[in-house]
């Protein structure tokens, strides 16, 4: 039992911290000063993840961790890896918020409470191994994020974006819930392992087979069950794809991203994605993935996701091309990045063994997903942070023209921003390159050559609009009379920028080490997140 609390530590820190923040905010005389505590809470939660990573290493530990929650939550290394991304994203976003909200006269304590609870929700979602837990996590996360999107109360865009996000998000949550209900109805289980076991066995209604015409009735019921289960799977995919922002469930992304205050945008793009992908790994691979076979198409979801991946890449990139606002461009490109990650996701049910002790193709692909999420998190938060510095008090730098001449005016900001942009564009030696490289490798290993080619072509399109930022920064002068940005004095943002820039470079320099952690996270998962080799 003492283990149970220990495993819950990352979430408990955030939850308890969230309540404390609320109290502090209620009783303190003046606003502000909560950014650092919030960041510290997140980093403490991240530290707890790191500690648990080492604490619960052996399979016996993992089994204990799994049984500690009766199949509600899995605190295995996959969860810890995702939790670490969430803690990192939340902590850095709060650091950004500390300076940003002040500067834009938005400083109100509830932002920090919201972000803390949302992070706790993200962690629940990432570790959920029960459909009810998935829903609770999803809603905890979403409610915080909806409110954060609407945080600029006087701004119509913010309101509009938040309302759309909320309405459509409710719709998506309803789809997910409906899918879950159908699965429960067909199998009698809400826990993923139970559903998986029920689906693996042929339908059996006690006593029915013995009755007259019972065999036929049974086979009809079997058919009904199979059909409904497949429909439920599609509904669940739709619900989670919404959170990822995959096409065609992406329409809310640009509005919400643009309307939200920039720290919230950075936060949404990173943590919500990480948590939702985690849940997808557990649900799709864990329930429908035929994870013991040599190769699997698992009821068609990989093929389905492959199409979602390509659609997300293409639409995200093409629309990003024509944006004049960098913030909106980053929003659309986040749809494209979701597509790239989905491309690796498609391969996760494959169980062919790789040479060199790298596990199976599926495990390598799932590790690519995790690695990509981490790489995207550091690059994206950094990019948003640098964008904040490029703006000035009360006026955000959002358009390409706003960053013109930044290279001369503020070389350090420009240098940092170019690191992140290069990383997002996937140019070596930044970490983004290796993230894409891993995905392409996974796709090729599973003979999804067309998917790999689609990814490469899209990545090349992406380079075009990403490099436009660099061209603007270094080769263009601001238009005469344009307002010059005066970077705010903000140790929080600087700290974030340095931290993420170093990570972008270090992870780019030693990608295999970090990929190794991701692979370990996949291999040491209690509930399957990728196809393991047949023993």
């Amino acid at each position, binding site marked *: 039992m003492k283990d149970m609390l220990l495993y819950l530590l990352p979430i408990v820190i955030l939850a308890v911290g969230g309540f404390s923040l609320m109290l502090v905010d209620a009783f303190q005389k003046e606003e502000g000063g909560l950014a650092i505590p919030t960041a510290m809470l997140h980093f403490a939660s991240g530290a707890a993840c790191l500690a648990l990573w080492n604490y619960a290493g052996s399979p016996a530990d993992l089994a204990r961790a799994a049984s500690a929650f009766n199949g509600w939550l899995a605190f295995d290394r996959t969860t810890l890896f995702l939790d670490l991304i969430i803690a990192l994203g939340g902590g850095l976003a709060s650091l950004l918020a500390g300076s940003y909200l002040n500067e834009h006269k938005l400083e109100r304590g509830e932002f920090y409470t919201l972000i803390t609870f949302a992070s706790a929700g993200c962690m629940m979602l990432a570790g959920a191994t029960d459909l009810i837990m998935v829903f609770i996590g999803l809603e905890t996360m979403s409610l915080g994020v909806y409110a954060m999107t609407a945080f600029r109360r006087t701004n119509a865009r913010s309101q509009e974006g938040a309302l*759309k996000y909320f309405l*459509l998000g409710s719709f998506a949550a309803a789809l997910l819930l409906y899918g879950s209900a159908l699965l429960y109805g067909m199998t009698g289980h809400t826990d993923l392992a139970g559903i998986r076991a029920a689906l693996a066995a042929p339908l059996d209604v006690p006593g029915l087979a013995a009755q007259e015409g019972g065999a036929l009735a049974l086979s009809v019921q079997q058919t009904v069950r199979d059909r409904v289960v*497949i429909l439920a799977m599609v509904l669940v*995919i739709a619900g989670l794809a919404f959170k990822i922002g995959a*096409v065609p469930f992406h*329409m809310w992304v640009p509005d919400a991203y643009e309307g939200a205050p920039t720290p919230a945008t950075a936060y949404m793009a990173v943590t919500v994605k990480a948590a939702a992908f985690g849940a997808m790994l557990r649900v799709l691979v864990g329930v429908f993935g035929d994870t013991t076979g040599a190769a699997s198409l698992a009821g*068609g979801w990989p*093929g389905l996701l492959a199409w979602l991946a390509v659609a997300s890449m293409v639409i995200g990139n093409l629309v990003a091309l024509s944006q004049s606002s960098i913030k909106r461009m980053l929003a659309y490109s986040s749809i494209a990045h979701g597509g790239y990650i989905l491309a690796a996701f498609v391969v996760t049910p494959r169980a062919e063994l790789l040479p060199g002790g790298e596990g199976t193709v599926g495990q390598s692909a799932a590790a690519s997903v995790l690695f990509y999420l981490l790489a995207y998190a550091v690059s994206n938060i950094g990019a948003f942070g640098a964008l904040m510095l490029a703006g000035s008090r009360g006026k955000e730098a959002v358009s390409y023209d706003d960053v013109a001449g930044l290279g001369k005016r503020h070389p350090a900001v420009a240098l940092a921003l170019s690191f992140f942009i290069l990383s997002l564009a996937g140019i070596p030696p930044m970490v983004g390159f290796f993230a894409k490289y891993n995905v392409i490798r996974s796709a090729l290993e599973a003979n999804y050559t067309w998917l790999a080619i689609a990814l490469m072509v899209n990545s090349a399109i992406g380079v075009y609009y990403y490099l436009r930022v660099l061209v603007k920064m270094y080769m263009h002068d601001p238009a005469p009379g344009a307002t010059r940005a005066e970077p705010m004095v903000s140790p929080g943002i600087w700290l974030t920028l340095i931290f993420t820039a170093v990570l972008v470079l270090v992870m780019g320099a030693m*990608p295999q080490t970090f990929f190794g952690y991701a692979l370990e996270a996949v291999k040491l998962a209690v509930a399957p997140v990728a196809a393991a080799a047949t023993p």
Partner: protein
Amino acid sequence: MSAVLQSLAQVAPQVSNFVSASPSTYPVLGLILLFPLIGSIINGFWGKKIGREGVYITGIATVAMSFVLSLLAYATLYKTTHAPVAEGAAHGPSQLSFLLWDWFRAPVGAGVVQLKIRYVLDELSGVMLLVVTGVGTLIHIYSAGYMSHDEGYARYFAYLNLFMFSMLNLILGDSLVLLFVGWEGVGLCSYLLIGFWYTNTAYANAGRKAFIVNRIGDVGVILGMTILAWKTGSFEFAQIRETLNVQGSTALTALAEKPEFNDVVAYFLSFGRTGLYDFWMRVIPEFTWGGAACFFLFVGCTGKSAQLPLYVWLPDAMAGPTPVSALIHAATMVTAGVYLLCRLSFVYVHFPSVLALIAVTGALTALFAASIALVQTELKKVLAYSTVSQLGFMFAACGVGAFSAGLFHVYTHAMFKACLFLGAGAVMHACRDKQDLRELGGLYKFIPHTFRTFLVATLAIIGTPFVTAGFYSKDELLFRALESQNSNHPWVGKFVFVVLVLAATMTAFYMCRLLFLTFFGKFKGWSLSKADYPEHVEHAHDDHGHDAHDDHGHGHGNPWDAPKENPALMYIPLYVLAFMSVVGGFVGLPYLFTHKESVWGEWLIRSAEHAGKPITDWAITMADPRVHTAEVTAMIAGFFAFAVGSGVAYWVYIKADGAPVRALASSARPLYQLMVDKWRVDELYDFVIVRPLRFASDVAAKFIDRWIIDGLVNLVGMIPRALSAVVRKLQTGVVHTYAAVMVFGLVAMIAWVEFRPTVSLAATVEANNRISLEVHGGPGYTYQWDPEGDGTFAPTNDEYTTTTRQSTTCTPQDTTDGRRVCRVAVRARNAFGYTTTVTRFIEVPTGDREGR
């Protein structure tokens, strides 16, 4: 030299035991790289904060530490390789290495290759390491004096340190990939430093030119590298070498394969005529994968090391600060190409035709650049073309198979050419940035330290017999060229010899001309008499010098002041380099004198030993009596070149005060003008390459960009715009639209899983054509099997089973390309009753029937 080394070797292990566990983990190598990187980071980020002194100390100290550690590492290497071993036992490891971390895995050929960040010090990289860190340290010291009036000193030292870091990566990296990282890094630093005074458009353009020309070469390196790794299955030098040194190894066979496009290319070149086709196939007998790899890598070398036809960037690169020219564009970076050839000599020896190409290119470059240098009037331009020419010597040496001789010239050249460039910088510094030979003269009185060292270095480069390093290295490579036997093109050695002797004669002439015009005669820079400046304007000296260059290099006195000698910070490095230009050559005393292998040759012998295709085609047997004849011939030829060249120069510029040249120039006006215009190669490239490209890009910009790209972008942009138009009209409608899209997507997804059953079929081939099959669908999938591939599925009709595994013994069919395959099929029905059929052809082992 070796005595020093030996005594160092005594001390080294005691020191290095603290930091080193074994030769396979020698962290000092990491420190050697780390120091310049730290220096670069400090100077780059906090340069302005720590101030001028701080930047100088950081910049110099980090590189000096690197040099000291290099000496330590070198001594340790010496000790390791010379450790006494029992009779008949294998030598100790001849390399020190340090693995930093595993980088990433790359699929190469059929396997997966682990790329590592690992640094290796062996005999070859040891020599380069000492040259780079040693000369680098001196030039950093000199720079502190040279840049003392420049505002951008922090940026300068940051770039210079970064350059050192990249160059060390290039040298110490143990794989092609790491070498390429360094290769790109030095290119970047070179670009940044050439355009250091970027506010001057001409200088910035010179940087850009260097960058673009080098990109052409880089494509070659990438191609060559990829082919080599693909065919040998490794990026690591040691592994490639090991596979190639085994006679008849698969890698060797793979390299010797002719690519299919070989025929295609030859076919196109011969316009479909068989006679011509045979001709091409004879001319290019090494049009194999390996030959192509070697060729492409050589293309990269011509870019980086400024050989024909890609040499054009180097003379322009002299726009950068002079110490940069000395370090990057004379002593170190430009020799990277030679280093690459030496590093991969074990590949190159298998491809004599490529070597012949290299030798001829090198020799022609030597001659061509020397001819341009004859008539240039700018101090640094002459030295620049001289560098191109000397690099040609090195390539010619490598091309005739004398890799160690080529490297010997790299090393001596680094000493005297760095000395010359720094001397030129000192002259410019003293003479208010004047570098036109017609405006200089008589400087030996004013700047005696510079003069003395410049004189010694000039004597070295023109190969003054018996006392200078230049003589020994030039003699060595002339001799090797004469002696070499290229098995495909036997004439190459003699040809190279003749051309190089000619080039050496020109070298002697133009270097003496440079020396005489700069330091002898009468000073013509400005009037030294106070009477000529009646108005006594206090700031009269503000209006000379380069516009971007103006805050450095001028005396702070009156306009009539004579040139002043530079501070000791600047001339002490000159003395060190001049000293090395003399004694540095004694490590390579010829066999003729000592009757044994020189220290140099002995040191590098392991790098030059290549099993497999025997190196004896190229090397010489010392006992051979012909060797003596050849060596004497080479020495006489070298002496001839020195005597004629310098003698003519002496007669022309000292005795006759330039009159004969003026007469010659006016009588052969067009030829002279052509040489002054550098054979108009730049104009030729402009006409043949740049203009058509610009035209094409104009067309692209006008049509492709405007109509296609912009059209596409506009079209795509119209979608959100159209959407937003809808939004504006129906304020609340938009969420419905979004939701509608979601519903549409959901319906499409459901339709997809309903109508498109998807299954995968996995097959395991066992012995005796036995195949195990396993099908994977998903919930509700049922199957019909046809494991024999004869078109009859079981069970028949509408019956489907839930069996997912089958095993069968198949009767294989032969395919046209000699493989044997079995056909298997399965029909799957999903929960919604829709079916799909999956057919697979599974390859089975051909067995001994084919005897493959």
